[in-house]
């Protein structure tokens, strides 16, 4: 339902905006005092700038870390040395185990394949017959010894074992069938020594999984069955001889190599960037014309063509040289150049002189050229600290005006700095640069060279 209106209502409603009044200036302070603490607003561009600077400094650091120094770490040497030490320590274990093995076997501990001597014997057999499957199984099932035992040591161990086994065989021969019938449990539990002895004496290795060279299968049939049971879970390795070919080599040559001495890490010439910087650089540009054609009345930089500007961002790296810093960054430079010039065409025109004689004058070809420059350069500066907050700068820039020819700048300047706070340093840098531009004028009449007088204003972030 619409409200009934009268003129007073209309009057106030039509001028509701005219009731504006200004409060006291101090009122905001009172309001602000009652507001919750402000949270800083992080704008996207700040994050973007920070990310770009960080990325750039990281790239610079990594580049100089890897290409500017010769740091090498002999990881291979470390590895060999480590494996050698491990092998030595574990050889001792192998020797101990080998000594204890016959006792264990005779004690009937129930795990015939746990015998380290047996492992050694098998390895010895494998070396001879290149039947590494069984040794590979041992590698898997045995822990440290099987993986590190020195080959020579193992050979010794296996020789010892062979002699032991031979003795056992002799005893068995003497006992004859009585032993088999009286103590079958010994035969089952202690088969390893006997069988190995038999196998070694036959110069053949019993290979339950991948039998290639079993000379007397029937003689070892019962053992083969047991071994098959025992190793049935490892049959997946049967078709992979490379596994055993690549087992840790028992390379005696390594053992004779000199002791590894860690190489002292060379200190990098460059260190991590100490500061990041951004700067703005207005400049006055004076053109030096390197003409390839005869030019007359060259007029440059009218219509505001002298002024250019640039922005830079990058990182400052401290050098090992005292008081020296290295500044690297990207610089974007933009300016406008305008030229008017006359080129001698070589043609002449006849004119009448005052004394009614004729003369000749050269005919010029009047030309103009305007260019808008956008140059992206890499800036490299050496900064020498004359005294605190005073730096002398010498550097060069190289870049390209994107689609055109390269640009090179030689650069010198003097920087005055002021510490704003513990993280920020404000600085002003008066500089002179001489720029050589590979780009020629559109008619190839001259090349663009430039004297740049600039005043860089920037901030370094620590």
């Amino acid at each position: 339902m619409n409200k009934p209106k009268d003129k007073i209502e209309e009057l106030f409603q039509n001028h509701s905006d005219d009731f504006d009044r200004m409060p006291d200036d101090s009122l905001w302070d009172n309001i602000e005092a009652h507001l919750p603490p402000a949270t800083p607003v992080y704008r996207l561009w700040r994050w973007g700038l920070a990310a770009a600077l960080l990325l750039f400094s990281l790239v610079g650091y990594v580049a100089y870390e890897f290409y500017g120094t010769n740091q090498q770490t002999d990881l291979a040497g470390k590895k060999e040395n480590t494996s050698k030490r491990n092998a030595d320590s574990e050889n001792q274990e192998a020797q101990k185990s080998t000594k204890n093995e016959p006792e264990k076997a005779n004690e009937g501990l129930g795990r015939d394949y746990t015998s380290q001597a047996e492992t050694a014997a098998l390895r010895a057999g494998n070396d001879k017959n290149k039947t590494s499957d069984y040794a590979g199984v041992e590698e898997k099932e045995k822990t440290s010894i099987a993986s590190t035992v020195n080959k020579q040591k193992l050979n010794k161990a296996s020789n010892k074992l062979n002699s032991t086994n031979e003795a056992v065989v002799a005893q068995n021969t003497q006992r004859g069938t009585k032993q088999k019938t009286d103590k079958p449990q010994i035969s089952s539990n202690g088969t390893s020594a006997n069988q190995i002895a038999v196998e070694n004496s036959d110069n053949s290795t019993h290979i339950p999984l991948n039998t290639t060279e079993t000379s007397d299968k029937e003689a070892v049939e019962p053992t083969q069955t047991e071994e098959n049971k025992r190793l049935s879970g490892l049959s997946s390795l049967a078709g992979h001889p490379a596994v055993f070919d690549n087992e840790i080599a028992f390379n005696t040559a390594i053992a004779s190599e000199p002791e590894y001495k860690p190489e002292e890490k060379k200190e990098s010439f460059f260190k991590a960037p100490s500061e990041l910087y951004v700067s703005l650089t207005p400049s006055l540009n004076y053109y030096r014309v390197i003409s390839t054609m005869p030019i007359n009345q060259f007029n440059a930089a009218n219509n505001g063509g002298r002024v250019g500007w640039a922005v830079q961002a990058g990182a400052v790296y401290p050098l090992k040289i005292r008081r020296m810093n290295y500044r690297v960054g990207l610089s974007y430079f933009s300016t406008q150049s305008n030229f008017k010039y006359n080129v001698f065409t070589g043609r002449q025109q006849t004119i009448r002189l005052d004394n009614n004689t004729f003369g000749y004058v050269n005919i010029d070809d009047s030309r103009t050229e305007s260019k808008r420059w956008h140059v992206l350069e890499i800036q490299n500066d050496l900064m020498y600290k004359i005294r605190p907050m005073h730096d002398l700068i010498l550097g060069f820039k190289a870049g390209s005006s994107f689609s055109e020819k390269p640009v090179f700048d030689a650069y010198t300047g003097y920087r005055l700095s002021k510490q704003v706070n513990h993280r920020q340093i404000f600085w002003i840098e008066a500089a002179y640069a001489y720029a050589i531009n590979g780009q020629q004028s559109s008619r190839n009449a001259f090349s663009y060279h430039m004297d740049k007088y600039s005043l860089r204003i920037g901030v370094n972030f620590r």
Partner: protein
Amino acid sequence: MLTDEEVFRGCLKNDRKAQATFYQRYKSRFFGVCWRYANNKEDAEDIFQEALIKVFKHIKEVRDAKDLSAWVRRIIVNTAINHYRKKVTFDDVENLSDEVLLPFDTHDEILNQLTSKELMEVLNTVLAELPNGARIVFNMYVMEGYTHPEIAAQLQIAEGTSKSQLFFAKKYIQEKLKKKGFNVMNSVKMNHI
């Protein structure tokens, strides 16, 4: 310069710069609203300060920047009502019907002339001279667009009381204007904007 949308977003994030911008940008408008409800500058500033603190603390309740202005006005009105709740008495005028208001429509000769900023100062003065109850009802009904039932509910008074307060306010304003010389016989030449 921040747009209204950016200011709103900044205020949502409790950004002090955005809050200050909001204050600077709208202080005259919203303080004017406070002034209409208050009868002196001190009260207006108290209402304004309290209202703005509420605004910045609860601005997350606003979903769109376009709704912000109306929402702030509502906060200010509620703050003003609360400010005067204990000081307001509505018993100074008797209940009157809507028809009683009609004669005011016939006295529009004077009001036709009241179209300048200068005159708004006069109106402000007249408003400030109104009793608190009548001034609040007048503001709510005329300036904010509340209906009598809404005003009655908000102020916890009867609808008739709201109507009588409005009638009283209008009559009071008209009389005051006449006393200040704004009548047909003594017409003041005002420049139309």
